[in-house]
């Protein structure tokens, strides 16, 4: 199950790094690609940890879809205010310069293309940049989408952050999705423990930018069998 025929993958220009990225390293690597002064939405779960690696000097402003721009860090102890939470329902703090708005305005902000970057987890990303992150497709699963489909189509750039291989060893970058789609042709960059990839939308292929803890050739073999 590990190699896939037909994944259009270009590894020719990839840089190689000796160590794989651990969770903190991956979050830091994503943070490095967030442009200065960007407006950014960090998806629930692992993407949230990117915030810890943003340099305040970058001037990045965080959006949370439950109605806040300029969201602060997680709240601790007596900072916790049940009226002030992020999209993952974790209490956060209010830094100076924040603003609040209702859900329709918040999603208008997102869907209107005003966010520069959103960072999402994924089950799968296809060579065309299709994203699957909301539904396993299991027949007895209860569907629950939250804001995933809005985030997938709304931001100027969509970053995915995930492990490159599933627990069963199968690649999560795939020729075409086998899980139900969240959005089509929406992913721009994929950050994983073993490699950072760009989606080349014009040519419908995935380009390895950096390999971590392995070689470009090894990744090519594990992803394409070639």
């Amino acid at each position, binding site marked *: 199950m590990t190699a896939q025929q037909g994944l259009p993958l270009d590894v020719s220009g990839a840089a190689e790094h000796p160590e794989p990225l651990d969770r903190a390293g991956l979050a830091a690597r994503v943070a490095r690609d967030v442009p200065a002064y960007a407006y950014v939405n960090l998806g629930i779960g692992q993407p949230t940890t990117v915030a810890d690696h943003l340099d305040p000097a970058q001037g990045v402003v965080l959006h949370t879809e439950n109605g806040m721009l300029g969201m602060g860090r997680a709240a601790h102890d007596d900072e916790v205010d049940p009226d002030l939470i992020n999209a993952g329902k974790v209490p956060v703090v209010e830094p100076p310069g924040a603003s609040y708005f209702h*859900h329709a305005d918040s999603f208008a902000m997102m869907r209107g293309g005003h966010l520069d970057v959103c960072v999402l987890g994924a089950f799968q990303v296809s060579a065309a940049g299709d994203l699957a992150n909301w539904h396993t497709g299991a027949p007895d699963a209860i*569907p629950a*989408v*939250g804001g995933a489909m809005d985030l997938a189509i709304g931001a100027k750039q969509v970053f995915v952050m995930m492990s490159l291989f599933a627990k069963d060893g199968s690649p999560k970058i795939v020729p075409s999705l086998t899980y139900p*789609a969240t*959005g089509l042709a929406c992913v721009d960059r994929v950050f994983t423990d073993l490699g950072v990839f760009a989606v080349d939308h014009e040519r419908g292929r995935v380009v390895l930018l950096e390999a971590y803890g392995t070689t470009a050739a090894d990744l090519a073999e594990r992803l394409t069998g070639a």
Partner: protein
Amino acid sequence: MGRTTFHTDPVEALAGVADGDTVLVGGFGMAGMPVRLVDALIDVGAKGLTIVSNNAGNGETGLAALLKAGRVAKVICSFPRQADSYVFDGLYRAGEVELEVVPQGNLAERMRAAGAGIGAFYTPTGVGTLLAEGKEQRTIDGRDHVLEMPIRGDWALIAAQAADPMGNLVYRKTARNFGPVMATAAATTVVEVRETVDLGAMDPEAVVTPGIFVDRVVTS
């Protein structure tokens, strides 16, 4: 029609909720959840309700208690499945409650459309997914869109920070969430507030929900 009415009894404030009604329920998680009104809705006893809310209840309180009491025929929400949403999960798997999953932005925008007199709108959210199946599509400026219809409530039950005698509302931090949108989308909007303020005490520039959208206010 104006003159927002003020009540201390939340059951009294829900007078008129009938079997089969559609009820928009505010809140994102517990922030902005109209806890007293949802509890009162159980006491009111109406059955066969359609509940429109972001989630489908946690544990056995609030919406979960309403579900457990067998009052809900259908849930329209973005995220029913949570760590402790076992009441909903059980009813859903038993086929005792219908589910319409709606992307969160479409949920907000469809209610906004109902409140704003928009008959339908095209959005790129959901294109090419299971949630767009059977929906009309259209390519606009080279981008595919799905046609989405308004979601209208017979009732909106929301929570706010404060109301003035005109029914003007302000919210607090991210507890604002769906409240202002739902208030516009229902035939009758009932709001539970933490405080009431005197006429003229609310900054007209900072009113989030003008009183025209507020029919009944429940005070503590």
